[in-house]
């Protein structure tokens, strides 16, 4: 009952808003043309910063510091649930009701296009941010149709975690650079008596966003694409099939354990830490956690392998955006500069192990000593391919998950899955 009513309320609210707009548009049609950079950043005063749950407890201290320096322009942290879908929905609800409750939004990189196209977030003056010092692929995630709609705050890239102790015992000195090398390394390692029952590789293959990430990575790492630069689907290709086939065949021959079809990030991390896996694809957050587990000192990271050479990661991370319906935008802009500054990035890298958007950190000797995975991560991010940057991202990722899952579980051949996916994506992009 409750859900139905809220849904109905959303609808009615959206509806009322649409009605208002109808009449508003009659008087000022030019306002709707949405020229980038037309926003004026005026007004100073208290604002809010909306993000998911502050699990590392590092955001509030930083905001406290800002508040101390700006007693008249205080920032309040609004914490949404830690689940990304819920965060997105609450931000959308706020936008659909044109509420000024949310000022600065902590957006997942894949939401930028959707929020920008709906004009829920303002275009930003790029010149006021040190964008040229940021990694290019990261910066791309903040743009929509060449306009800057967000500022990168943190990044993320996939890496290959591997068991150094076992590889060494099997006489392998280099981490694998290709899928074939990985499989042969596994064959060697599994000859060892204490690795007999281990599985070779796993990523995240449960039907959720993680599958989109892993599927896209496999396709990109084999030289294929999911969507091209302009968002057009081009996935029914021989290269894409090679990528998907790597996953499908690995499931069939046991390279990937069959329970990996239920793995999300955490399950796969636990399997790796419990010594069930030789290789694992995961995000940088695993590094410090695994360092405190039973396999501490027995693992290292390498760039993701691919078909003929190094693979491509999907890009993760978060950007800051400014809600179109907010007040005190001058303060908001200042806060965004503060929050995305190099100093703040250093703080988040140290305190929360968040990958910075700034290139310089990855080569900083002192930092690399502390975070040995930084050079690998930099390589991963530089070679990363962003997930499809489309307005209807929710639909696209649903289709990707649908078809990839069907192929991995064997209910469709990989060729058929890609064919259906291409058709589905074309239909959806035509419907826009």
């Amino acid at each position, binding site marked *: *009952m409750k*859900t*139905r*009513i809220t*849904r*109905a*309320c*959303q*609808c*009615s609210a*959206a*509806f009322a808003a*649409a009605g208002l*707009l*109808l009449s508003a*548009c009659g008087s000022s049609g030019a306002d*709707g*043309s*949405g020229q980038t950079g037309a926003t004026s950043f005026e007004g100073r005063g208290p604002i809010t910063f909306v993000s998911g749950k502050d699990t590392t407890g590092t955001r509030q201290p930083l905001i406290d510091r800002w508040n101390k320096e700006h007693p008249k322009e205080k920032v309040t942290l609004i914490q949404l649930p830690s689940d990304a*879908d819920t965060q*997105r*929905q609450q931000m*959308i609800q706020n936008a*659909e009701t044109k509420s000024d409750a949310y000022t600065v939004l902590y957006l997942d990189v894949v939401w930028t296009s*959707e929020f920008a*196209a*709906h*004009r829920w977030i303002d275009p930003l003056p790029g010149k006021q941010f040190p964008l040229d010092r940021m990694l290019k692929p990261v910066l791309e995630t903040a743009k*929509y*149709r060449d306009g800057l709609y967000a500022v990168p705050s943190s990044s993320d890239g996939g890496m290959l975690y591997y068991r150094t102790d076992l590889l060494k015992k099997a006489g392998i000195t280099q981490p694998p650079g290709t899928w074939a090398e990985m499989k042969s390394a596994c064959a060697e390692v599994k000859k060892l008596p204490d690795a007999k029952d281990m599985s070779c590789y796993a990523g995240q293959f*449960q*039907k*959720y966003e993680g599958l989109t990430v892993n599927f896209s990575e496999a396709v990109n790492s084999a030289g294929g694409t999911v969507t091209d630069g302009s968002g057009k689907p081009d996935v029914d290709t021989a290269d894409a099939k090679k990528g998907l086939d790597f996953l499908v065949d690995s499931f069939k021959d046991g390279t990937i354990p*069959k*329970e990996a*079809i*239920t793995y999300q990030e955490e*399950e796969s991390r636990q399997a790796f830490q419990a010594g069930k896996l030789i290789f694992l694809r995961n995000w940088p957050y695993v590094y410090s956690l695994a360092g405190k587990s039973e396999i501490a000192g027995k693992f290292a990271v390498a760039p993701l392998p691919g078909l003929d050479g190094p693979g491509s990661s999907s890009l993760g991370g978060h950007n800051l955006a400014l809600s179109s319906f907010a007040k005190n935008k001058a303060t908001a802009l200042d806060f965004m500069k503060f929050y995305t500054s190099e100093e703040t990035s250093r703080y988040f890298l140290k305190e929360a192990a968040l990958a910075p958007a700034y290139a310089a950190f990855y080569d900083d000797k002192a930092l690399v000593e502390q975070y040995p995975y930084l050079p690998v991560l930099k390589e991963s991010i530089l070679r990363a391919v962003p997930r499809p940057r489309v*307005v*209807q991202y*929710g*639909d696209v990722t*649903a289709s990707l*998950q*649908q078809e990839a*899952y069907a192929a991995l*579980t064997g*209910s469709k051949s990989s060729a058929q899955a890609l064919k259906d996916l291409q058709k589905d994506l074309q239909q959806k992009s035509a419907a*826009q």
Partner: protein
Amino acid sequence: MAVTKTPPETGAGRAAGGDRGPVNRRRARATAGSGRMAALLVSPTLVVLAIVVLYPTLMALNGSLYGAKGLDPKTGFIRDTEPFVGLQNYADILGQAGERFWNAFWNTTFFTVVTVGLETLIGVGMALIMHEAFRGRGLVRAGILVPWAVPTAISGLLWRWIFNSDGIANALIGQQILWTTEGFQAKVAVIVAEVWKTAPFIGLLVLAGLQVIPKEVYEAARIDGASAARRFWHITLPLVKPALLVAMLFRCMDALRMFDLPYILVGAQKHSVETLSMLAHHEASNVRFGPASAYAVLLFLYVFLIALAFVRLLGADLIGDVGADTHKRKGRRLRIPALRRAEVTS
């Protein structure tokens, strides 16, 4: 609330004819004077109901006639208005997305029939146990009610751990079943979790029904030499039936709207467990409120029809009681407290 009460009256007027009809008419004439007073007293309730039930329902109906805002390819922005598409959303749901809709429809129906069936059996069993006088009865009662007190979302997480590939469910059966993957096992997982959580609800309502059955009836039966099975079948069951039916009605309506359990336990977009609510949620979360409303309206109609069928069932039963033997008349009196209790828990 309003639905459950009116039809018995109309049903009585039509079917019982003879002795009930004149009574109704006389009462109608008698209330003509005090009718205005009654209307005045009821009006606050009606106003509240109109605001929280009628208005959103009408808005959803209206909303379902509008399509999603399109993307203007020139500016790259989403248009400001939702186009009026008439019944196109419904046509799309039943045509283009028909496969998905009917799959969700059958899933919803399957879950409802199976879970409510199992819950009824287990719930009645629980109620009978809770009703017995024995040492530690309070503890057993509390224990049985715990699952009902756990929020569904939390129980979904709980069962996800149990049905994990390394979870306790697999450890117990000594086999590795991947419960949260597509397939019949996912349905089983949802049914187990749902029954675990809501059987106590039926147990609670049936217990309330059991407690008002007078002891003398059982004593009389025992003196007449009725066996325990006969006593259950011919005394307990007919007398708790009103309470049981109400409990089942509420469970059915709840189960038809099932969302959080399959969503959290098995995951979104798993076709083996996708329900109608999940389809509506999927549309709404992709900012297509028109189609989402259309799904919600269809689900509403379905729930409404089932509720109506149930009320008819209850209503028919009501008339059947009148003029029958004394046992059943007692049963009729039980109905009112049972109904009220159900309203409180709903």
